[in-house]
Structures are given as C-alpha cells and as structure tokens.
C-alpha cells in the first residue's frame, strides 16, 4: 500500500478528486469562515457576514419546502417573526439566549403546523396564494398586539457584554446546521419523496409517499430553521418590529434567494444567500429600489429561460465550455 499514488493511474486520482471535491470545498469554506473574524477585524465585514449567514439559513430552509417539495410559500416571514419575538420575550424574561433560540424553533414548528394542517389541503399555487393571506393577516395582528409593543416594536435588554464574535459564530453554526440538514435530506429517502411530490403529487402518492405528511414535515423543519434565524437576528438587533420581521418584504427576500441561486439544489440556496446578502449590502443603502428591481428582472429571466438559477446557468456554461474543448 506504500506509494499507492505511483501505482494508481492518473485517471482514478481525477475521479477521487471529483468525488471529494464538494466535501473539500465545504470544509475549505467552513474553515475560511471560521477564521475570518480573526483575520478581518472590521466589525462591518463581520456584521455583513453575520446577516449573510442568517439569509443563507432561511434560504436553505425555504428550499426544503419550496425547492425539494415544490411548495412555494410567500409566508416565511411568519416563522422568522415568530422566532424573533419568541427569543425576544424569553430573553427579557431572563432565559439564556441559546435556550431561547431552541424555543423559537419550537414555536415556529407549532405555527407551521397551525398553518400547514389546513393549508396543505391546497395544491401548489393555491397554497402559495393562501400563504400571502396568512402572512399579511399575522402581520396585521402583530401590529396590534399590545403585549409585544404593537407597531412600535419590542426592545430586548441583555445583561451581558456585547460580543460580535459570539453572534458571528452563532450564525455560522446555524447556517452550517441548515446546510448539513439540507445535504442529508437531499440524499435520503425523505428528500427523494419530496422531489417526487414536486414532480407529480399523484404519482408520488401512488408509490407510497404520503404528500400531506411529507409536506408538513418539510414545512415544520423549514419553520424551525427560519425561526431560529429570526431568534438570532432578534438577539443581535436588540430591537424588532412587526413591519420588519413580519414584513412582506422579508418573505419576498427569503423566497428570492433560493430561486435565484438554484432551486431544489443543495448549493443553490447557499449561493443565492451569499449573492443576495452582499449585493443587498452594496446597493441597498443608496438605491433600495434598484435592488429589488434587479431581482424582479432576474426572477423573470430565470423563470422563462433558466429555471436552474445561477447554479444551473453556471453548470450549463461549464458543460458547454468542456464540450468545446
């Protein structure tokens, strides 16, 4: 077995590289992000990465339901907001923030069942429209609730010194968790079932996949991740209000990232989250309109010409390039 690289032909090394490329890429990315706060002292960059991780988390979560199972939801702000408010209320009651994040996941799951049990009786597009109504109704209710401060928002008081690094690593761990879940699901029976539902719900049901429970499970899992992201955001921001966390634009952002990155893939939502987070940062301060205008145009182009999103388009270009060579 010694000096096996000399015995093995070059082709199998190439194969070995191809096999482990994704894993290596993942570890390299993780390592780079883990040491980033030590190398880049600028708090602004760290903040940008922190929000990007949260976007990536929600984007991956949305993709579990909207991508793999093909159930487009315009209502993910509900989970984000519920998570944010759960963490906020519990932290002000004196609970450890990390336990509060878990509680956020729990309440978001409860809400997802409350929404999903009736709404998943509807097929794809009708479900999508129902989620618009639910999300807007929840926002209006939250704007009027008195014990959360209503429209004027809710402030979180944390009796600990502020450590940006702690927030950064919390978000990084959360995003990694979301990614691992998405990766495991994509290759598991559960993920195959979800993909079968997206392609043909009736055929999937005939083959022994219960679309209703599969969709509910994917919805609950996505809600848990989104709720935790909301909680982490609430702790960092220390102030939340219904127009922000429950706003329709939050749902829209969460939907746009995976669609633009590449729907129903593992890496697409990650890519979409990073692109969205960074582009938003660059443009939104000076031209908030152009930001969403660009995404609207991108969405139209993606729907009509490249349903695979940025990832699909890049793969296609790569294949064409290789074929020419």
């Amino acid at each position, binding site marked *: 077995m010694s000096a096996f690289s000399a015995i093995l032909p070059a082709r199998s090394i190439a194969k070995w590289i191809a096999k482990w490329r994704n894993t290596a890429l993942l570890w390299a990315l993780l390592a780079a992000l883990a040491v980033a706060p030590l190398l880049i002292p600028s708090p602004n960059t760290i903040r940008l990465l922190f929000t990007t991780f949260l976007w990536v988390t929600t984007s991956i979560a949305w993709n579990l339901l909207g991508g793999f199972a*093909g159930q*487009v939801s315009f209502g993910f702000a509900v989970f984000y907001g519920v998570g944010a408010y759960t963490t906020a209320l519990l932290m002000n009651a004196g609970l450890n923030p990390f336990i509060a994040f878990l509680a956020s996941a729990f309440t978001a799951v409860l809400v997802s069942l409350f929404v999903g049990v*009736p*709404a998943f*009786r*509807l*097929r*794809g*597009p*009708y479900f*999508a*429209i*129902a*989620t*618009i*109504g*639910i999300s*807007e*109704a929840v926002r*209006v*209710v939250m*704007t*009027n609730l008195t014990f959360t401060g209503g429209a004027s928002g809710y402030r979180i008081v944390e009796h600990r010194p502020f450590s940006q690094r702690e927030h950064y690593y919390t978000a990084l761990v959360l995003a990694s968790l979301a990614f691992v879940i998405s990766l495991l699901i994509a290759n598991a029976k559960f993920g195959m079932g979800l993909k079968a539902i997206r392609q043909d719900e009736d055929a999937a049901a005939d083959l022994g996949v219960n679309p209703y429970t599969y969709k509910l499970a994917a919805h609950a899992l996505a809600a848990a991740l989104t709720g935790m992201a909301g909680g982490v955001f609430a702790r960092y921001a220390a102030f939340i209000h219904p127009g922000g966390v429950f706003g*329709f634009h939050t749902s*829209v952002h969460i939907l746009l990232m995976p*669609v633009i990155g590449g729907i129903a893939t593992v890496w697409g939502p990650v890519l979409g989250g990073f692109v969205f987070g960074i582009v938003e940062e660059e443009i939104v301060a000076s031209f*908030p*309109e*152009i*930001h*969403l*205008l660009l*995404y*609207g*145009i*991108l*969405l*139209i182009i*993606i*729907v*009509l010409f490249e*349903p695979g999103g940025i990832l699909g388009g890049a793969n296609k270009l790569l294949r064409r390039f290789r074929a020419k060579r």
Partner: protein
Amino acid sequence: MTLIDFVNLLLSALLLAGVYAVMSVGMTVIYGVMKIVNLAHAGFMMLGAYFALELFERFHVDPILAALLAFPVMFLLGGALYWVLVRRLPHSDEPTLPSLLLMFGLWLVLQNLGYLIWGNTDRSILTPRTLSVINLGPISISTVRLTVFVAAVACLLVLQGLLHYSWFGRSVRALIQNRYAALISGVYEGRTAGIAFGVGIGFAGLAGGLLGSLYSFDPDFGRPFLIRAFVIVVLGGLESISGVALGALVLALVETFSILFVPAGYQLAISFGLLAITLIVLPGGIASLLAKVRRLA
C-alpha cells in the same frame, strides 16, 4: 345600532363592492382564459393610480375620466407584456408555479420602477368632490364614492356586454368552459389570450385609477387590494364574471359590518385571513356552497 346607521353601512358596503368588483374582474378574465394567477395585478393598479394622478395634475383631466383613459393605455401595455413574456410560459390547465413566479417578478419590477419614478411619498388625488357629501335626509353619501361606483358599474356592464355579444367574448367564454373544445371549434387561442390579458391589465389600471380617487397611494399601493381581489375571485368561483360581483358584495359587506364586532386595527386581518379561509373551506366559491345547500335540501 339604529336603522339609519344600518342603512348607511349597507350603502357604503354597496359602493365599496362596485370598486372591488372592477378590481377583481381583470384577474378573473386572465385566470379564466390562461389559468394564470396574476400576482402583478397590484403593480398594474398602482400604475393606473399614478396615471390618473399625472393626468389630473399635469393636464387637469377629471380623475374619473383619467381612470377611464387608463384602460386603453394599460390594455396596450398588457398586450405588449403578453407578447414579450407571458406567451412563453408553458400551457397548462391549472395554474403553475412558473407563472406565479413570473407574475411576481413582474410585480417587483413594476413596484420598484414606481419607487424610482415617483419616490415613496404618499400621494392622493384631491378634487372638490373628495370631501363633499350628498345628504338624503339622515342618509349621507360621499360624492366621490358614488361617482366611482357609477363608473365601476358602467365598466362592468360594458365588459359583460362585450363578453356576451362579441366574437372575442364568445372565444373567451369558450376557452374558460373547455379549452380543447374551443380550439377544435376554431378559437384562435393566442390572439384571444393576448386580448384577454390586455383586458385584464386594462381593468387593473382602471380599478387603480378609481381607487386612487378614494385612497392615498404610494408605489406599494395595491397589496391589500390584491389580497382582497384574490378573496373575491375565489368567492366568485374563479371563472365567472357575475360571480365576481357577488364575491365583491360579500367581501364588502363582511368588511363593512365587521367594524361592529372587531377593533378597527384588526379589520385588515379579517380580509387577509378570509383569503386562506375561503381557499381552504370554500374552494368552489359561493356557487358551490349554494349547490351543496340545495343538494342537502
């Protein structure tokens, strides 16, 4: 509540129903012919409102007339958008997610173009009519609401006539009832769908212009109205135009009379929640409910 209060509420519900019907009917036509749920409806309503505002401020055109003028302009815009974008969507007998996402992208584009052009300040169309009231004894009617109602009902009647007595209308109704039978009978689907899309967008613009006379608006204008239009279209049974009028009336009544039971802040939650509830409980609309009741009786 006295009888007079009741009559006043009833009247305001009726006047509201007229505008609601006009804003939903465009969505029904597009859904019926193409099975596309027009999420961009709100964007076109916003354009209609700003069109009326610009005509009113620059050329001192009467806002109601300006709203009517928005129809042909938006009709052409709708036809062009059909030609450029919508006809590329795959055909389907039921709404598809790509069509939903396409219309959503279009809405984002329209809305943010609106922000670029007009900024994000609230605008409103104010005429001497805005604050004047017609008093009939103890009953008072807002003049602007009455004129808007009359214009809305007139437009609905014109559309109804068009659908019943023209070749285009017959093609539309045939496509709604049975697409394949219609194609066999020689309905030119592409052209009918294009015109229907134009009519749908035209009505969105018209409704936007009329709503602009009643409420203040910004480029995000129309989201609450979009959700209401969904409710009405679903209540009306998704494909019937007289159903839309009924759905509009039901929603207007529910909204107006809910003020007696629900705090004002929560009122919008009722209209929005109704969307999910009607979709889940009453997917066939009021007509299916009546049929069920009749079967039970």
